[in-house]
C-alpha cells in the first residue's frame, strides 16, 4: 500500500484531533486532559497540563477570558464548561514557586522586549528558554502592566508576585525598570537605537496611543501599528508586536496576550535562525478543530455554581462540573461497529496497523486476523464525518496478502471451497425457459438462497415464467462474492468471466437476483448487464397469489450490501405493507444498516466476533425481525432470534415455525444446491437425471452432525476418509471402544474420523481436522 494513500486515509480519521476547547484556546490548554485529571482527583496532573502551556498559571487561573469556551460542544446543549474555575482549583493546589534550573546554552543574539505586560513577559520567558539574552524595558517600577488594574479580591497580588519570580530569577533576562521607550529625546535608550543594538525587538506596550511615541512603524488609518496576524511582524522586519497593542482596549484578552508572546518569540527565533517566518504556522493561536463530536442524546445540565465565589469550586463542585464535560471525541464508527470496537482502538490506528502488517518482511503478522475479520460492509464510511472506509482498506490488504502468498489458509479456505462447489458442475446451470430460444430476463437466485431455501428458488422461477413474457432463463451459480471478500482477485475475475459468458449465451437478458450480494456484485462488476431485484418484480407484476400471512409487527434489518439501494428499501417496505404487516425501523437501517456477520467472510475468519456482531444486532429490538437475505436469516435464527425471510411471508406455509427453524448446515447447503439443480432439470425441463449418491452410506447422529458443522468438516470429506480407510485397510482401532479411527488428506486439510461399521453403512462418532501435514 502506498505511503501517500496511507496518509490520506489516516488523515480522514479525526479521532486524534484536539477538541474544540483546546484549538480555540490561543495557547491550546488541554482542557479535556485537565477535566480527566479532576475526575480522577489528580489535581497535580491537572496543574501540570495547565502549566505546560500557560507560563503564569496563578494569574491566568483567576482572570482568563476563556476563549476555549467558544469551542466547547457543551454550548450546543446548554452552557460551556466552567474551564477557568476548574483550572483555578488545580492551581490552588499549587505550592510555592520553585526555582527551575534548566541548563540552556546561550545564543549570541540579544533581543529587546519593550513592555512588561503578559505578552512581553511571555515573549521574554520563551526567548530565554531558547537561549537568547533578553533585555526587558518596563516603563514603571513593577511588572504586570494592566494586571494591576484587576481588583485585588479577584487577583490577589501575591499571585502576581509568585508567577513573576521566574522572570526575576532568570539568568537570561535583564529587567530595566522605569524606562519608557519612544523616539523622543527623553527616551534613553531611544527606540531606534534599541532596534539597531538588538537582533530583534518585541513591542508589548499595551493599548495606549502609540502615534506620539514616534516609533516610525507603519500605522493604519486608526493610528494602530500595522501587525501581520500570522507572524506579528511590524513594518520593521526586526520588530514584532502583540498583546493589547494589537488587541486594543476593547479586545483585551489575557490568554491571547500570552499567545502573542509565544507567537512573537517563535517568529523572532525563526528570523534569527534564518528560517521561514510563515511556514507551518496554521496551528498557532486559535483555530477551528477538525474533531467531530456527536452531541445527540446528551442531556442538558447547567454549569455547577460555586457555593463560595471568592474561594472558587470545592473538590466536590469541581468533580461535578468536570463530569459535565462531554470529553469530546469522534468514534462515530466505533460506536456502531462491533468489529471496530473489538480491537479497542480507532481507524487512524487501525490503518497504521494494517500498513505495518503489510510492511513486515520477517516477523509475525499480528494484524492478519484483524484485517481478515472486517465484514467490509461500509457502515464506517456512512457514519464517518470524512467518509473513511475501513472495509476498503482491509479488502485491499487481503488482496495484497493473497498476491504475496501471505494469506493464512485457515481464514477463508472453507468459504472458498463452498464457493467452488457453487461454481462447479453440481450446481451451475444456464438455460432458456422451456419452449424459448431467447431470454428476456434471467433469474439468478444465487448460491446462498439455493443452499438455504431451495424450495423458494423453484417457486420464484415458476412465478417469473408465469408473469413475464418473452422467456425467463435460469442461471444457477455463485456471484463470486466470497472470492472478492477473501482478496482472491484472480478467482473472482475468472468466475465473473464465466458468468458473463453464460449471460451472453442467453442473449444478455436482464438479470433478476434474489440475493442482495449478487445484486451488488453484478451492478458494480458487470455494469453492462441490467440487474434488478426479485422484490421490485413482485412490486411491478404483483405478488404471487399464495402471498398471505397473518399480520405481524416486524422489525426490518436491511441487508448491508443494499445500503445505497433506496428504491429496494422502499419496495421491501411496500411489499410488507401490502401484506398487511406493521413495520418498525431499527435506529441503524437502510443506509446505515449493519452486517449479519457473513459479509466479508467474517464468520469464517473470526467466528466469535461474528457471533458478537449478530448478538448485538438481534438485541436492538425485542420484536421479530424481517430480512431479505438468506444469510442474515440463518445467522440471526442461529442465535435465537425469530426472523422471517420476506420469502417466508410470500411463499411460506407455517411461516411461524419457519422463523425459528435453524438454517441448514454447510453439508446440507451443498446438498440443497445440488438437489436444486436436479429438481429444476426434472420438473421444469423434464430431463431424467439421477440424483448422485454417495458411494458409501453414512449414519450420522445429530450430535456428530453438529460437531462436524461446528468444526467446518463436510460430510463428503468424512466419506472420503472412511472410503480411503476401508479400501486400503489403513485404519486404527480403539480397543476400548471397538471403534475405527482413520485419517486422510483429500486436499489441504487432514481429516480424522472415528467410526464403526453398521449394517450396510458406517456410523460416524466423531471427526476433527488439522492443517499440519504428517510426513515421515
Amino acid at each position: 500500500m502506498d505511503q501517500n494513500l496511507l496518509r490520506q486515509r489516516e488523515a480522514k480519521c479525526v479521532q486524534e484531533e484536539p477538541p474544540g476547547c483546546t484549538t480555540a484556546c490561543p495557547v491550546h490548554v488541554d482542557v479535556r486532559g485537565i477535566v480527566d485529571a479532576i475526575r480522577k482527583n489528580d489535581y497535580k496532573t491537572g496543574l501540570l497540563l495547565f502549566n505546560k502551556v500557560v507560563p503564569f498559571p496563578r494569574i491566568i487561573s483567576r482572570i482568563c477570558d476563556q476563549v476555549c469556551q467558544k469551542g466547547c460542544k457543551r454550548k450546543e446543549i446548554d452552557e460551556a464548561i466552567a474551564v477557568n474555575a476548574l483550572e483555578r482549583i488545580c492551581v490552588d493546589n499549587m505550592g510555592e514557586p520553585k526555582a527551575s534550573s534548566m541548563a540552556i546554552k546561550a545564543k549570541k543574539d540579544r533581543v529587546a522586549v519593550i513592555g512588561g505586560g503578559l505578552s512581553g513577559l511571555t515573549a521574554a520567558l520563551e526567548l530565554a528558554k531558547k537561549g537568547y539574552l533578553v533585555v526587558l524595558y518596563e516603563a514603571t517600577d513593577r511588572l504586570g502592566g494592566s494586571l494591576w488594574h484587576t481588583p485585588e479580591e479577584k487577583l490577589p497580588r501575591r499571585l502576581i508576585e509568585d508567577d513573576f519570580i521566574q522572570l526575576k530569577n532568570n539568568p537570561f533576562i535583564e529587567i530595566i525598570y522605569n524606562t519608557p521607550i519612544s523616539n523622543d529625546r527623553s527616551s534613553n535608550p531611544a527606540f531606534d537605537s534599541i532596534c539597531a543594538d538588538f537582533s530583534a525587538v518585541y513591542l508589548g506596550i499595551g493599548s495606549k496611543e502609540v502615534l506620539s511615541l514616534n516609533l516610525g512603524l507603519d500605522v493604519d488609518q486608526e493610528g494602530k501599528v500595522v501587525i501581520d496576524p500570522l507572524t506579528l511582524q511590524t513594518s520593521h522586519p526586526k520588530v514584532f508586536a502583540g498583546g493589547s497593542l494589537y488587541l486594543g482596549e476593547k479586545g483585551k484578552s489575557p490568554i491571547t496576550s500570552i499567545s502573542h508572546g509565544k507567537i512573537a518569540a517563535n517568529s523572532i527565533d525563526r528570523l534569527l535562525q534564518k528560517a521561514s517566518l510563515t511556514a507551518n504556522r496554521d496551528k498557532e493561536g486559535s483555530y477551528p478543530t477538525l474533531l467531530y463530536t456527536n452531541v445527540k442524546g446528551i442531556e442538558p445540565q447547567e454549569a455547577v455554581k460555586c457555593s463560595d465565589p471568592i474561594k472558587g469550586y470545592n473538590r466536590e463542585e469541581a468533580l461535578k462540573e468536570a463530569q459535565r464535560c462531554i470529553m469530546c471525541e469522534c468514534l462515530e464508527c466505533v460506536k456502531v461497529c462491533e468489529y471496530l470496537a473489538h480491537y479497542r482502538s480507532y481507524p487512524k490506528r487501525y490503518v497504521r496497523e494494517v500498513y505495518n502488517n503489510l510492511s513486515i518482511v520477517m516477523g509475525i503478522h499480528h494484524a492478519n486476523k484483524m484485517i481478515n475479520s472486517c465484514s467490509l460492509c461500509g457502515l464506517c464510511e456512512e457514519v464517518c464525518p470524512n467518509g473513511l472506509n475501513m472495509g476498503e482498506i482491509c479488502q485491499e490488504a487481503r488482496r495484497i496478502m493473497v498476491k504475496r502468498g501471505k494469506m493464512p489458509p485457515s481464514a477463508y479456505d472453507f468459504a472458498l471451497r463452498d464457493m467452488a462447489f457453487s461454481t462447479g458442475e453440481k450446481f451451475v446451470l444456464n438455460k432458456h425457459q422451456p419452449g424459448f430460444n431467447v431470454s428476456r430476463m434471467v433469474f439468478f437466485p444465487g448460491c446462498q438462497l439455493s443452499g438455504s431455501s431451495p424450495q423458494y428458488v423453484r417457486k420464484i422461477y415458476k412465478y417469473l415464467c408465469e408473469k413475464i413474457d418473452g422467456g425467463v432463463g435460469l442461471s444457477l451459480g455463485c456471484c463470486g462474492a466470497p472470492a472478492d471478500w477473501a482478496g482472491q482477485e484472480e478467482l473472482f475475475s475468472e468466475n465473473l468471466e464465466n458468468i458473463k459468458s453464460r449471460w451472453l449465451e442467453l442473449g444478455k437478458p436482464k438479470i433478476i437476483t434474489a440475493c442482495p450480494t449478487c445484486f451488488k456484485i453484478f451492478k458494480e462488476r458487470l455494469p453492462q448487464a441490467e440487474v434488478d431485484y426479485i422484490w421490485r418484480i413482485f412490486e411491478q407484476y404483483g405478488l404471487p397469489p399464495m402471498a398471505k400471512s397473518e399480520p405481524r409487527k416486524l422489525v426490518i434489518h436491511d441487508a448491508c450490501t443494499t445500503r445505497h439501494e433506496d428504491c429496494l428499501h422502499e419496495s421491501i417496505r411496500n411489499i410488507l405493507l401490502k401484506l398487511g404487516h406493521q413495520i418498525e425501523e431499527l435506529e441503524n437501517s437502510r443506509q446505515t444498516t449493519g452486517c449479519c456477520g457473513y459479509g466479508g467472510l467474517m464468520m469464517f475468519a473470526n467466528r466469535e466476533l461474528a457471533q458478537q456482531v449478530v448478538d448485538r444486532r438481534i438485541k436492538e429490538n425485542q420484536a421479530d425481525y424481517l430480512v431479505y437475505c438468506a444469510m442474515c436469516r440463518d445467522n440471526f435464527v442461529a442465535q435465537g432470534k425469530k426472523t422471517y425471510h420476506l420469502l417466508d411471508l410470500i411463499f411460506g406455509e407455517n411461516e411461524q415455525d419457519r422463523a425459528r427453524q435453524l438454517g441448514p448446515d454447510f453439508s446440507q447447503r451443498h446438498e440443497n444446491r445440488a438437489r436444486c439443480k436436479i429438481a429444476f432439470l426434472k420438473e421444469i425441463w423434464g430431463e431424467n437425471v439421477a440424483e448422485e449418491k454417495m458411494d458409501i452410506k453414512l449414519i450420522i447422529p445429530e450430535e456428530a452432525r453438529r460437531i462436524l458443522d461446528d468444526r467446518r468438516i463436510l460430510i463428503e470429506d468424512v466419506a472420503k476418509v472412511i472410503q480411503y480407510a476401508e479400501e486400503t485397510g489403513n485404519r486404527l482401532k480403539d480397543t476400548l471402544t471397538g471403534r475405527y479411527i482413520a485419517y486422510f488428506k483429500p486436499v489441504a486439510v487432514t481429516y480424522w474420523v472415528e467410526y464403526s461399521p453398521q449394517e450396510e453403512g458406517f456410523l460416524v462418532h466423531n471427526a476433527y481436522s488439522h492443517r499440519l501435514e504428517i510426513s515421515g
Partner: protein
Amino acid sequence: MNKENKQQINIICDKCGIPLTPGKVTLSYLGSSFPVELPKCSQCGLVFIPEELARGKMDQVEKALEDK
C-alpha cells in the same frame, strides 16, 4: 503426555494388528517442519494424532505459522 500415553495403549494398528508405540513423525506446514514423537505403527508407519492434540497445540502452531 500422560493422557496420550494411556490412550495409545488402547490404539492398535488394525492393518498390522500391533499396538502403536512412540515413534518419530515429521509435521510440516507452510514451509516449516519439525519432528515430534507420536504413537505410530512400527510396521506400516500409520500414526495417531489424538483430538486434543489436533485441536489444541497443533491448532496453535498452525495459526502461528500462518502469521509468520
